[in-house]
């Protein structure tokens, strides 16, 4: 694949010629334009900054990696740095391929990677254009708006990229094996010695020399599992061994007791035997061999392996610390009877159950529906949290105070609104390394936002920065056409059939609908403006049931 990469201060030309080659059937061009903000500020330009020494090689490396799975012939990338006015392109990507599928695939994947890995930043949103002879950016200039502002409502991919880029792996710590379930291992698990450490019998029987051709043997000893009785064996000697017993010497074979006739202290081998009743030293692993690489999630099997290696205090990612604030005067605790107009708080249960799958126990508080309640809770919050989840109060309406309170308490708002349903009024904010999500009050929106975006943060913090769990299945029932402007996450139930995973979309009347949640173990990810989809159509979905 030929690659051209350019960082430039000048405007990207309107017309850029595709490469001259008759091999290409598809030529795709993408321009990322600077948009004017909708609600809130109106901007006239964005200011871009780049670490040029690293940006260009990183762009190249990403394209080279993607070339392995997307057969594309030519890519040209131009990224502007400096001030870019609204309406102009900050980024241009041109892709030539034999067929359109590979081109579209590479383009989409490249954009996702660029937004996470490439050291380029929007550092300022300008409300007036600088004079032509303005001085270069000085760090003491006041910024007119927040860093990493995403003008306009975000798509799910943009949200995921924004969240992942703000979460780096947490520190590692040593913990007891019992506490390590569901955590990510941060050191290699290395076999301290050959596994098994010596030859062992796998059956109850008799150990004899491999090179002996005798068929009658004198039984000279007996070894049980756990005993260590090394000795030399003569050609006509045998040792009675139990399953798991350490053999007394090298180069022995074991004859099953069912295959011998035994009389006093002599045995006669009735059936010629193969070599297979012995686990040889080092057969499973050699001393120094890495058995689990760092970055693996520890499940029950992994813990058992660590136990067998004696790694009883493994180095793992520390668990993240979460504060959950449920706002709203209309919610009461589940064990109380709601008054007319009130409902029981189900979101707190949803949040704690979701986090429990990650081994995280949040601190949970209910705060009244007022800016004061939320502000007080945020100000009283200890410094040690990694994540604040705020349920309710996120809707953009006359009672919208969550973004304002977050800003007052020192948070920068990265996302104010999304183009995804459910979860349109989702807020993502950050203060230093502390991440905050303002989750829209309704339970289905909670379910989606937790399992899609909060999950991405938890994965990055756990050290699994490259994990993606989206997969494909086949619809078992039809789905009506989608909203023209918004992607949809549709709660569903998956089943595994012989040829494919079948995905059943669950009935869903509104974002307040809880009844489908009890059955849902997946979210179908549908793009904006999708047509009605028939039974049998393949769709992309995110499983939400898997134990992390």
């Amino acid at each position, binding site marked *: 694949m030929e690659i051209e990469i350019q960082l430039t201060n000048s405007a990207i030309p309107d017309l850029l010629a595709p490469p001259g080659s008759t091999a290409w059937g598809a030529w795709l061009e993408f321009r*990322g334009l600077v948009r004017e903000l909708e609600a809130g500020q109106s901007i006239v330009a964005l200011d*871009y*900054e*780049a*670490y040029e*020494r*690293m*940006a260009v*090689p990183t762009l190249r490396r990403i394209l080279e990696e993607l070339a392995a799975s997307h057969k594309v012939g030519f890519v040209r990338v131009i*990224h502007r740095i400096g001030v870019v006015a609204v309406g102009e392109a*900050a*980024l241009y990507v041109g892709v030539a391929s034999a067929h359109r599928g590979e081109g579209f695939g590479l383009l989409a994947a490249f*954009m996702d990677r*660029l*937004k*996470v*890995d*490439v*050291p*380029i*930043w*929007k*550092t300022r949103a300008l409300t007036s254009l600088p004079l032509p002879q303005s001085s270069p950016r000085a*760090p*003491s200039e006041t*910024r007119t708006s927040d*860093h*990493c502002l995403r003008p306009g409502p975000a798509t799910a991919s943009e949200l995921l990229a*924004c969240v992942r*880029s*703000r*979460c*780096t*792996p*947490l*520190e590692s710590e040593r913990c007891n094996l019992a506490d390590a379930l569901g955590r990510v291992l941060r050191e290699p698990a290395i076999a301290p010695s050959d596994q098994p450490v010596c030859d062992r019998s796998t059956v109850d029987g008799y150990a004899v020399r491999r090179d002996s051709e005798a068929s009658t043997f004198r039984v000279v000893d007996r070894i049980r599992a756990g005993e260590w009785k090394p000795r030399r064996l003569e050609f006509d000697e045998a040792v009675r061994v139990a399953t798991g017993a350490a053999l007394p010497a090298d180069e022995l074979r074991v004859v099953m007791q069912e295959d011998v006739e035994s009389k006093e202290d002599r045995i006669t081998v009735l059936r010629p035997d193969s070599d297979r009743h012995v686990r040889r030293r080092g057969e499973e692993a050699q001393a120094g061999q890495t058995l689990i690489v760092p970055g693996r999630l520890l499940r029950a099997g992994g813990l058992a392996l660590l136990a067998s290696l004696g790694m009883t205090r493994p180095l793992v990612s520390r668990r993240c610390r979460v504060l959950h604030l449920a706002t709203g005067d209309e919610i009461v605790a589940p064990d109380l009877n709601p008054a007319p107009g009130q409902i029981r708080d189900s979101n707190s249960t949803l949040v704690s159950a979701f986090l429990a799958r990650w081994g995280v126990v949040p601190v949970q508080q209910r705060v009244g529906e007022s800016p004061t309640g939320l502000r007080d809770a945020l100000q009283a919050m200890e410094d040690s949290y*990694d994540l604040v989840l705020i349920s309710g109060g996120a809707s953009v309406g006359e009672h919208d105070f969550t973004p304002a309170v977050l800003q007052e308490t020192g948070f920068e708002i990265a996302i104010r609104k999304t183009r995804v349903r459910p979860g349109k009024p989702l807020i993502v904010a*950050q*203060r*230093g*390394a502390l991440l905050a999500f303002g989750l829209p009050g309704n339970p289905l929106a909670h379910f989606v936002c937790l399992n899609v975006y909060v999950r991405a943060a938890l994965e990055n913090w756990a050290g699994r920065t490259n994990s993606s769990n989206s997969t494909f299945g086949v619809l078992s029932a039809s789905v009506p056409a989608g909203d023209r402007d918004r992607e949809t996450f549709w709660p569903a139930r998956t089943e595994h059939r012989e040829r494919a995973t079948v995905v059943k979309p669950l009935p869903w009347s509104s974002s307040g609908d809880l009844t489908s949640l009890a059955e849902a173990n997946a979210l179908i990810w549908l793009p904006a403006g999708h047509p009605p989809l028939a039974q049998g159509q393949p769709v992309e979905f995110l499983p939400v049931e898997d134990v992390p």
Partner: protein
Amino acid sequence: MVVRRVLAAGRQILSGILRWNWSQSTMTILFFAHLRGATGCAETTLARSEMTTEQLWDDLIAEYPRLAAFRRCVRLACNGEYVGPDARFRANDEIALIPPVSGG
């Protein structure tokens, strides 16, 4: 007399060599995006010939306390490539503090 002059010349040469070695043992640290606001500068140097990431952060936070709040969301790069927390830096390395990116 001759011996003294030879010794003096030798000492001068030696101290010249030592000064040259000392001036080689620095690392350049680059700040980007809002980290420039937090530190008030775009780059600095540390007089070190080798360093772990722990030591880097300790030195930087001692000099620029406002950096502490950003530590966990910043990735480190050395000579243009991302490195992990167990990286070791050497003299003449260019280390960049990369906060969450927002290109495109």
